[in-house]
């Protein structure tokens, strides 16, 4: 009994607490640098994957029961296949709004842009409530399917985000609405370029450093500009909802709402943009725009 008491209180417990806190602090510092702890996270994610599965189970079961009551199983499979095909087709057609505008300005570049043939893969979102203000989702595809860090993900309506952690059988994606996420964009109508960063709210985006006299209107479609060499050009990112011009400020405050259903999407598309083409593509766009 004396041992127990000693263990429970006294200097030994305080020492253990100190050691654990130091370890946590070290972990946090190293993890903040992102790269080094990928292996640890990978192992941990394998350990907790069953848990994620369990958390997801009630929702999955409800969905499963609902489906079983309405249709036969063969129809379900077909339906699922068609939905996935539909998602892929919708994604392809997303490019057209941007390509039309591009056609006016950069007719000769249209061909090369059309040749960009992107590989896609449908991934399921494992439903998880992740801590705000960080907005991330966990996908059921990992490095075994060729997912890589920095890979863009989209849904049927626009760009959703990018992969930040890759584990063997799952991966974590940062959504465009996350406060630490930003991507280079362009106003589809006028070609004004800006950086769209997340506002941390459910579907809000902010455009940073938009000049006061820039040609931006409410309702303008914002598309990715592809200048980062990471996101492919011409995918919808959001729609401008609010512009406030304060003459005392150097830049206009432009608020937009994300096109992708970032919070509701159950299935997303992982993109493998053709990396050989994109740098050329963006640099030629850049040079023409500057002339």
């Amino acid at each position: 009994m004396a041992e127990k008491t000693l263990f429970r209180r006294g200097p030994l417990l305080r020492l253990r607490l100190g050691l654990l806190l130091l370890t946590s602090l070290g972990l946090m510092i190293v993890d903040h640098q992102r790269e080094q702890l990928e292996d640890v996270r990978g192992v941990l994610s394998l350990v907790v994957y069953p848990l994620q599965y369990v958390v997801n189970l009630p929702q999955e079961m409800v969905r499963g029961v609902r489906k079983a009551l309405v249709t036969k199983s063969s129809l379900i499979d077909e339906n699922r296949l068609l939905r996935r095909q539909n998602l892929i087709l919708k994604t392809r057609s997303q490019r057209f709004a941007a390509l039309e505008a591009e056609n006016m300005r950069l007719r000769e570049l249209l061909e090369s842009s059309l040749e960009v043939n992107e590989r896609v893969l449908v991934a399921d979102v494992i439903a998880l409530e992740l801590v705000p203000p960080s907005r991330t989702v966990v996908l059921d595809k990992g490095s075994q399917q060729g997912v890589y860090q920095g890979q863009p993900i989209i849904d049927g309506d626009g760009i959703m985000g990018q992969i930040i952690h890759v584990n063997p059988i799952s991966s974590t994606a940062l959504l465009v609405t996350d406060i630490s996420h930003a991507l280079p964009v362009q106003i589809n109508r006028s070609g004004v370029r800006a950086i769209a960063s997340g506002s941390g709210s459910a579907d809000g985006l902010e455009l940073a450093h938009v000049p006061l006299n820039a040609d931006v209107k409410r309702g303008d479609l914002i598309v990715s500009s592809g200048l980062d060499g990471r996101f492919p050009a011409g995918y919808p990112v959001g729609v401008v909802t609010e512009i406030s011009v304060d003459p005392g400020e150097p830049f206009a405050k432009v608020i937009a709402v994300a096109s992708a259903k970032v919070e509701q999407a159950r299935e997303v598309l992982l993109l493998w943009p053709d990396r050989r083409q994109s740098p050329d593509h963006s640099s030629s766009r850049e040079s023409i725009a500057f002339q």
Partner: protein
Amino acid sequence: MMAEQGGSAWAIPVTLLAAIVLTLMPLPDWAVAWRPAWTAMVLIYWCMAVPDRVGIGVAWGIGLVLDALEGSLLGQHAAGFAIIAYFTVTNHRRLRTFSWFQQSLCVGLLVATNALLKTWVQGIMGLTPDYAIHWLPVISTMVFWPWLYLVLRDMRRKHGIV
């Protein structure tokens, strides 16, 4: 050693797992900010009831699992839970004698400590913490604590975990 202390203790890992599942369970938007700190509550209960079995080491491990699941900074929950467990284990006799109201206050205080740590870490990381999401759970935790206490106490007595 473990066998001497009482009956089978499977209820401890099961309730901890259930708490983690509840912590991650999708909720409607209005309820997300009010989600009680289930994992911390269950940890506090076991630290208070059986401090020889569940202590700061277990709490730290559970915190690490939660960090991996939530995608928060590795070690953030781990540190918070270790601190919570430390104060609970060192004061477990006192906590046991408290009325449910006093206990709720103490649990709220412990969860608030954890929330404070979270806001610090997020502040240092350069994120602007959403205050509601950190502090509303303190209130809901205090409301849910007496009921959770009753459920877990019954479970502990039924399975003879000492």
